[in-house]
């Protein structure tokens, strides 16, 4: 059916708005115009010789009573669109009250649709915000690209930063940031750990923010030999300095260095992500050209300069740099991209895009549902429309009327939707609020309100236009003639059925994606199921480099700590490790002895582990031996690899006795002999089946940050403070970063995934519910329409099963057709989502079977309930009523 859009001229909109908002002005103008007329008229009489007073009264006499004139004019002005609109709204309101059940259903259905969409929009809008700085669109991120690897690296080396720092003319300056952990300490006070950043002194100037107390960094602050300074964030200022405005000039110990506080940053700026203190630093004077990328670099475009102009300049500069430095990787080059792209990880934008897309399905289903609901009332309305059309109402007029009536329902749905969105946003903030970076803020603000308003109007159009067009098009003559039979015509019924099939199809698509997404979430959240996480308690500590400068000191501390904890009552085993299974994904390149180093070295994840690691995490040795106490710093370096590593890099043959070395960091050049193979512990979420695992003895690694995991006899909570006390007993100044149960840690790490899963489950269930309501409503209608037929059949002795089959046949047909279409569509959508599914297989048949069965069963149940009504029809009653 072709729907021509409503044609509304701009002038008529203007007049409509004028009549809507400028009522008083119009009245005033009308009075003024009449007054003007009277005065001119009087003046004319004066010219002919009357006195002023006489002329005035004659003029009034001639004009007559201005009241009717004014009324007539007013009527002309207003009797058009506004009056119609008000009439339509009133008629919609009356209609809504006359059929409360339909109204309530429509409002709840639309409320679910608008609420889901608004919630998702609030979240997306709240997260994909710009930085809270002046003209954030001018900020660009200076990234590096390796032509061989293809993926951009977000950090650049000190050499690259130093080389480009003041050169490009298109840029108002380039700033560099290195995020790190900072320990604030004073004697006799437990050390506090904060996230902070070493920054080039121009960073705040580039961002165009200034400290609320004290001063910004100056270039000389970063020079060698300059007195060390620090700018602290508002959070530190409040918590550690109790909002003391005299803090400027005080000295605090930062990572063991005494620094003078020169500024307090304004609230709400924790650049780049969640940092609360900043120290000035410039890239080293003459760094190696092949140094490790460690700086996050950004720049501000000069006013009026496009990013493309800056790119051109940078690429010619980059080419010159490459020619100068022979030891720089020739495949590496610098690139500029909008800072926004750096702000959000690569997956965030597509995931949110997918979620908005998916949630719009819920809204579509809701609209289709309401459209079908309105069509079901079509019989009664069609007559009214036919009468009005016969009396001269235009098609357009009738369409506008019906859409306006739906608008009344949509506004109700919108209010309910906003309430739902407020709840949804509150839940989101409770579950995932702490995950957000400082500039993100999920709330129901004016943009969200505007979005909800837009949705209300769209929903009214979507749900109202089809039934309106259909009703307005009805052939008045034939309908009025047939009125006594109460038939709504075949077409209306068919369209309802199509709409319900459409809903089933969309629900199936949505459910397929939901099931796959939840599967992906589960893959991510529960990579570790074999370790009984509830019996594990994890404490994380960090040894400051100023207090424990040498590897030996650190190893000695770890060893003493392990002894102190082991053997306490309730402790079954204890493990110290640089990373935790499933939580610390990091990998590095390595080389197997006897194989050449390819351009792209294979990568493996590494963890430094104490002796109790495998026992604590429930892994068993496949071959070879475990680490022993003799594998210390004096013994030859050894490693244990996992089964996955062996399958991937040794084609399943025994690697015992073979040697590998890790590149390019600290262990470069040290060959490690593989002494054992251990069963796979999932070390990364989502599982990375391609990346093997290399375990090193903690006593041979250089780690300063370790997690102490204690497995208890019973419940982990019993051991909550055991590790902390042991640490404090050894050295009260060691920073305890966190202490919690392993399952709580896992839950926190996967909270975002679980939130996504929860949202999808909610959307999926909404869709299922809406589709069932639609199907049930249609069956109810068809039972009502076929009362006479059913009555006759019953009177003629039809069996109940036959009657039910008769009523259900159409529904099952729509279900099957809708399901088929929806499952195919689901496969297509799932395939196109790709990585958004977080590791789930898009063509996993189980998801499709689960969706199909769930929808079919729910659908049949939804149709079955109203179908039973048909059996209660008393033949005598129906036939008598005819």
């Amino acid at each position: 059916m072709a729907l021509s859009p409503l044609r509304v001229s701009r002038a008529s909109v203007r007049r409509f708005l004028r009549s809507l908002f400028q009522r008083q002005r119009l009245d005033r103008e009308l009075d003024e115009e009449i007054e003007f007329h009277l005065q001119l008229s009087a003046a004319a009489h004066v010219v002919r010789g009357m006195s002023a007073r006489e002329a005035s009264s004659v003029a009034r006499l001639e004009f007559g009573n201005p009241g009717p004139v004014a009324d007539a004019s007013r009527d002309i002005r207003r009797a058009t669109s506004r009056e119609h609109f008000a009439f339509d709204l009133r008629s919609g309101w009356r209609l809504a009250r006359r059929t409360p059940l339909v109204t309530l259903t429509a409002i709840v259905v639309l409320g679910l649709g608008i609420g889901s969409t608004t919630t998702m929009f609030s979240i997306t809008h709240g997260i994909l915000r710009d930085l809270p700085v002046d003209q954030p669109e001018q900020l660009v991120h200076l990234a590096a690209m390796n032509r061989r690897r293809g993926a951009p690296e977000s950090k650049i080396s000190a050499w690259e930063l130093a080389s480009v720092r003041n050169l490009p003319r298109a840029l108002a300056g380039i700033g560099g940031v290195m995020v790190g952990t900072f320990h604030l300490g004073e004697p006799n006070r437990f050390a506090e750990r904060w996230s902070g950043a070493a920054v080039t002194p121009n960073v705040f100037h580039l961002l165009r923010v200034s400290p609320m107390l004290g001063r910004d960094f100056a270039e000389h602050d970063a020079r060698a030999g300059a007195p060390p300074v620090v700018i602290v964030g508002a959070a530190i200022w409040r918590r550690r300095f109790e909002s003391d405005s005299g803090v400027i000039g005080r000295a605090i110990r930062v990572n063991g260095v005494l620094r003078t506080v020169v500024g307090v940053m304004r609230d709400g700026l924790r650049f780049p992500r969640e940092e609360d203190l900043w120290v000035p630093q410039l890239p080293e004077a003459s760094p190696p050209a092949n140094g490790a990328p460690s700086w996050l670099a950004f720049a501000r475009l000069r006013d009026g300069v496009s990013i493309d102009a800056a790119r051109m300049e940078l690429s010619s500069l980059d080419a010159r740099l490459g020619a100068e430095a022979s030891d720089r990787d020739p495949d590496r080059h610098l690139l500029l991209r909008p800072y926004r792209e750096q702000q959000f990880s690569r997956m965030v934008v597509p995931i949110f895009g997918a979620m908005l897309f998916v949630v719009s399905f819920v809204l579509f289903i809701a609209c289709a549902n309401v459209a079908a609901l309105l069509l079901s009332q079509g019989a009664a309305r069609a007559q009214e429309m036919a009468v009005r059309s016969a009396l001269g109402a235009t098609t357009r007029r009738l369409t506008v009327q019906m859409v306006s009536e739906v608008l009344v329902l949509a506004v109700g749905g919108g209010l309910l939707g906003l309430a739902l969105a407020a709840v949804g946003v509150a839940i989101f903030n409770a579950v995932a609020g702490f995950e957000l970076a400082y500039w993100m803020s999920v709330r129901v603000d004016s943009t969200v309100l505007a979005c909800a308003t837009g949705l209300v109007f769209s929903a009214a159009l979507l749900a109202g236009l089809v039934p309106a067009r259909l009703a307005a098009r009805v052939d008045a003559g034939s309908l009025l003639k047939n009125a006594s039979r109460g038939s709504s015509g075949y077409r209306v019924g068919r369209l309802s059925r199509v709409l319900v099939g459409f809903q089933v199809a969309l629900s199936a698509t949505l459910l397929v994606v939901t099931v796959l997404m939840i599967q992906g979430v589960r893959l991510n959240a529960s990579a570790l199921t074999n370790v009984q996480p509830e019996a594990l308690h994890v404490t994380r500590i960090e040894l400051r480099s100023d207090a424990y400068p040498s590897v030996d000191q650190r190893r000695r501390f770890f060893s003493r700590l392990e002894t102190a904890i082991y053997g306490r009552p309730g402790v079954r085993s204890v493990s110290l490790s640089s990373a935790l299974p499933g939580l610390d994904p990091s990998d590095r390149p390595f080389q197997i002895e006897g194989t050449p180093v390819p351009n792209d070295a294979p990568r493996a994840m590494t963890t430094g582990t104490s002796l109790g690691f495998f026992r604590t995490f429930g892994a068993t040795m496949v071959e070879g031996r475990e680490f022993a106490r003799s594998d210390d710093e004096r013994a030859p370096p050894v490693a244990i690899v996992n089964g996955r590593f062996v399958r991937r890099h040794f084609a399943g043959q025994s690697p015992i006795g073979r040697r590998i070395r890790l590149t390019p960091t600290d262990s470069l050049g040290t060959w490690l002999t593989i002494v054992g193979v251990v069963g796979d512990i999932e070390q990364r979420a989502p599982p990375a089946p391609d990346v093997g695992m290399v375990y090193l003895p903690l006593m041979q690694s250089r780690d300063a940050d370790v997690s102490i995991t204690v497995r208890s006899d019973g419940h982990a909570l019993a051991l909550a403070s055991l590790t902390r006390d042991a640490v404090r007993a050894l050295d009260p100044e060691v920073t305890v970063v966190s202490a919690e149960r392993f399952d709580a840690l896992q839950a926190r790490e996967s909270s975002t995934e679980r939130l996504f899963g929860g949202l999808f489950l909610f959307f999926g269930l909404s869709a299922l519910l809406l589709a069932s309501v639609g199907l049930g409503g249609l069956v109810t209608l068809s039972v009502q329409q076929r009362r006479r037929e059913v009555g006759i059949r019953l009177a003629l002795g039809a069996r109940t099963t036959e009657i039910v089959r008769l009523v259900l046949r159409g529904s099952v047909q729509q279900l099957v057709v809708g399901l088929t279409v929806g499952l195919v569509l689901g496969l297509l959508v799932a395939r196109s989502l790709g990585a958004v599914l977080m590791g789930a297989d898009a063509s996993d048949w189980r998801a499709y079977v689960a969706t199909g069965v769930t929808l079919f069963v729910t659908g049949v149940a939804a149709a079955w309930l109203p179908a039973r009504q048909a059996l209660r029809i008393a033949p005598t009653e129906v036939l008598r009523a005819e």
Partner: protein
Amino acid sequence: MTSPRTDRLPGTLDLLVLRILAREQMHGWAIAQRLQLISRDVLTVGQGSLYPALHRLEEVGAIDAEWKMSDAGRRGRFYSLTLKGEELLERERASWKVFTAAVARVLQFA
């Protein structure tokens, strides 16, 4: 002399107003005066129909209104013909001619 009512035939007043405004921009009182003057006092328009007619024409977009200072130094509402109004005038004028010719023929030959 009896003055025939301008609204004797529907649409007549609209036609007259449009024709008068085709010459120049004018306010309501001047339109009434001009109508009276040109028709040598045969056609007078009651204010009760003039202003509603003007507002109706404005509503359909045949004429535009703006507030301007009149010669007398007071703010008056001046009406002018729009493009749409010109077209309307042409159509109305043509149909008026057809209509009066027909009436004349009936009066002559019936």
